[in-house]
């Protein structure tokens, strides 16, 4: 490959990465306080709770499905963890607080996983679109969170619990480490395992995948399950960050998460997308929001800008695809 075509391929395949770098350069110059280790780690911490879900959502969208319930699932799992911790350490039993928290976390993660599997089951067994099932779950889980908390934040956590959402290891925020770990695992899963390759096949053409002897139902149940599991994990981080189970947290997160996935180049039609693209999409949105805040751009404007970015990113992707087709 000669230099020119190398540059060309960088532009067609890495346009978002280039824009992200440019954005960072601009912000480094214009926004004081942007290019400090503290601020950058802060950005990473801010994006990590939505980010872990975004990686799962990438798989879901590649497989040709959607999950609208992740925001409510975050709130639900945060409340469930707080609720169980409270009950297990005080009311139903008087377990040591550490044990109570451990049981609560494990339970919340398992419940989360099976909620996703349920969506997949409805999809493959009864042909209920995942859009509908997760829309129902979105309302249902939000209500369930209100029910178990009685509408008030539950605060059963001891102070060390704050570590999960607010702690540091070697100066790096703990949620950011979970975010990176999730990235590595899913990147590997999607590119180096039979499961990951099947996800692309199922999303690209479910019938061809079925006729290739791939178990389409299992693949769909698994991707939805993994994503709901990650939403539950995110909920645990949130409950730790705010030290309570609050039913109103994470409202509207599903849209932020889907936006990051789409900006990262994943096609809503299924079959196309990369975990790495989502990583760039998530960081891009994080940097943009952080930069605008540092530059004192009003929150309303931030929303408008984000809307424009989503549209432009998708447009760029489509134009690029048209180009390569020719």
């Amino acid at each position: 490959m000669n230099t020119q075509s190398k540059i060309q391929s960088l532009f067609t395949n890495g346009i978002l990465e280039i824009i992200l770098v440019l954005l960072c350069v601009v912000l480094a110059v214009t926004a004081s306080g942007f290019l400090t280790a503290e601020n950058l780690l802060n950005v990473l911490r801010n994006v990590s709770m939505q980010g872990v879900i975004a990686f799962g959502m990438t798989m879901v969208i590649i497989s040709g499905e959607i999950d609208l319930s992740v925001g409510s699932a975050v709130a639900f799992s945060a409340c469930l963890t707080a609720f169980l911790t409270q009950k297990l350490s005080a009311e139903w039993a008087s377990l040591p607080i550490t044990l109570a928290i451990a049981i609560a976390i494990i339970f919340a993660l398992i419940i989360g996983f099976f909620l996703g599997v349920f969506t997949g089951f409805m999809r493959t067994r009864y042909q209920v679109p995942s859009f509908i099932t997760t829309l129902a779950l979105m309302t249902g889980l939000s209500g369930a969170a209100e029910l178990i908390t009685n509408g008030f934040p539950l605060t059963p956590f001891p102070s060390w619990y704050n570590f999960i959402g607010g702690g540091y290891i070697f100066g790096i925020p703990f949620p950011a480490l979970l975010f990176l770990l999730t990235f590595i695992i899913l990147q590997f899963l999607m590119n180096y395992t039979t499961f990951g390759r099947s996800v692309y096949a199922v999303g690209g053409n479910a019938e061809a995948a079925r006729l290739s002897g791939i178990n389409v139902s299992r693949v769909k149940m698994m991707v939805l399950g993994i994503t709901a599991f990650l939403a539950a994990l995110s909920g645990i981080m949130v409950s730790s960050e705010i030290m309570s189970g609050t039913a109103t947290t994470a409202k509207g997160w599903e849209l932020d998460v889907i936006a990051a996935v789409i900006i990262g180049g994943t096609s809503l039609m299924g079959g196309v997308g990369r975990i790495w693209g989502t990583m760039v999409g998530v960081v891009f949105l994080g940097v943009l929001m952080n930069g605008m805040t540092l530059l004192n751009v009003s929150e309303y404007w931030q929303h408008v800008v984000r809307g424009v970015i989503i549209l432009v990113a998708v447009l760029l992707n489509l134009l690029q695809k048209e180009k390569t087709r020719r």
Partner: protein
Amino acid sequence: MSIPTHSLQTRFLRKEYPGTVALDDVSVSFLGGKIHALIGKNGAGKSTLVKIIAGATQPTRGFILVDGLEVSLSSPRDALERGIVAVHQELSLVPELTVAENILLGRLPKKHGLGNAVIDWRLVFDRAEQILADLGIHLDVREKASTLGIAQQQVVEIAKAMSYEPSILILDEPTSALAQHETERLFDVLKRLKTRDVVLLYITHRLQELHEIADTVTVLRNGALVGTIGIDQATPAAIVQMMFGEVVQRSKPVDLIAPTEAFIEVRSLSRAGAFQDVNFNISKGEVLGIAGLLGSGRTELLRAMFGADPPDSGELIIAGHHVRPTSPEQMKELGVAMTPENRKDQGLVQLLSTRINLCMSSFNRIASHGFLTRAREERLVERNVRELDIKVARTDAPIAFLSGGNQQKVVIGKWLNTNPRLVLLDEPTRGIDVQAKQQMFQIIWEMSKRGISCVVVSSELEELLDICHRILIMRAGRIVSDVRPSELSLENLFAACMKEEA
């Protein structure tokens, strides 16, 4: 009988596509008040001719005369204005609208005044009823199209076409989805149309219908006009001769192993509405053909054997296992593979690369402990590309860029990678060029030599004679005979498939 006034003629029509000539100087005349059957094998040029007449595509050269006058048809709208209407094979009714709305779609009568914006429903229903009555059809025009059976929908399509008062009506395989009694009803309508001096062009694959409905038979082969004969001259022998030409028998390689013991058995396999009580054996390394017309149940049988559409009853005996196929996943484990009829939509994921498509059925075999690496995939893919002679520049580019023949090789390669015992091939040569077809035969024989049994379904009967050890003839969901190619001429095979369903 009145003197026909309507006519359609083509003069030296030629259509070239990059790399092929789809239509080669076709000059033919059709008169009003008659039903003209247009026949030919797949790829003979029928649909290209129809598309040109209907204005959907333009000829490279040549022209069309309607009622003796030269016309230029640069769009379907042009054709419509000249009184040419085509009813396509795929039905295009809007299911949630009434019969009347469907017939008059886009031309609903409006009430005068009120800016001509309000639909005059009484007029809509009256007019639609009138059109149906003229065709001798009794249907409630207020019913939704979705409540109609396929034959009735087909009739509504024809009524819709007739509402344009065409002088030329083209029917593209109108009976392909119809049952026997439905076909008869449709024929009644067509015979009525004959009395109205309409030029009726009737494309069909069902040769047994010709004597019931057609007045003349026009045959195309490889894009060229072979000729037009009156129905009284159209004996099966004459038609086969015209459709296939002088058939050159390609010889099978002599070292093809003779199949011996039963290897896989099919026992009383049935699926309601598709096929009943099918029994046969396949030997190791045997190439077994299934001949039958469209709708004979041949594709359904293959799909059932593969578990794609599980059978209602019956079983397969594979290497001593008695199994009722329930899913492709299960049959894959038992060493059964299938290359589907619709390669583009069912055989491949067009978005994905050649590499992933080749590996798609065998991820588990390629992976070690569930982990795939690109190197492992590439080793396999390289071998596929070499052995099957797949012409591909980059195996990581989307497979959509490959030609039909190469895509078909990828589908086969995908299954060879699962190390199968039995490969079911549904129309393996459809839509691929002559050279690729020869390669496909070589690949099938190569599999046979390696001890893989193959079941081949093909509409190209002469191909089955060329490549198979043995041929099963299927008619109306049953296997009616079991023959050896050496015992049978193409003509006889054709007649055996066509024989009226008793």
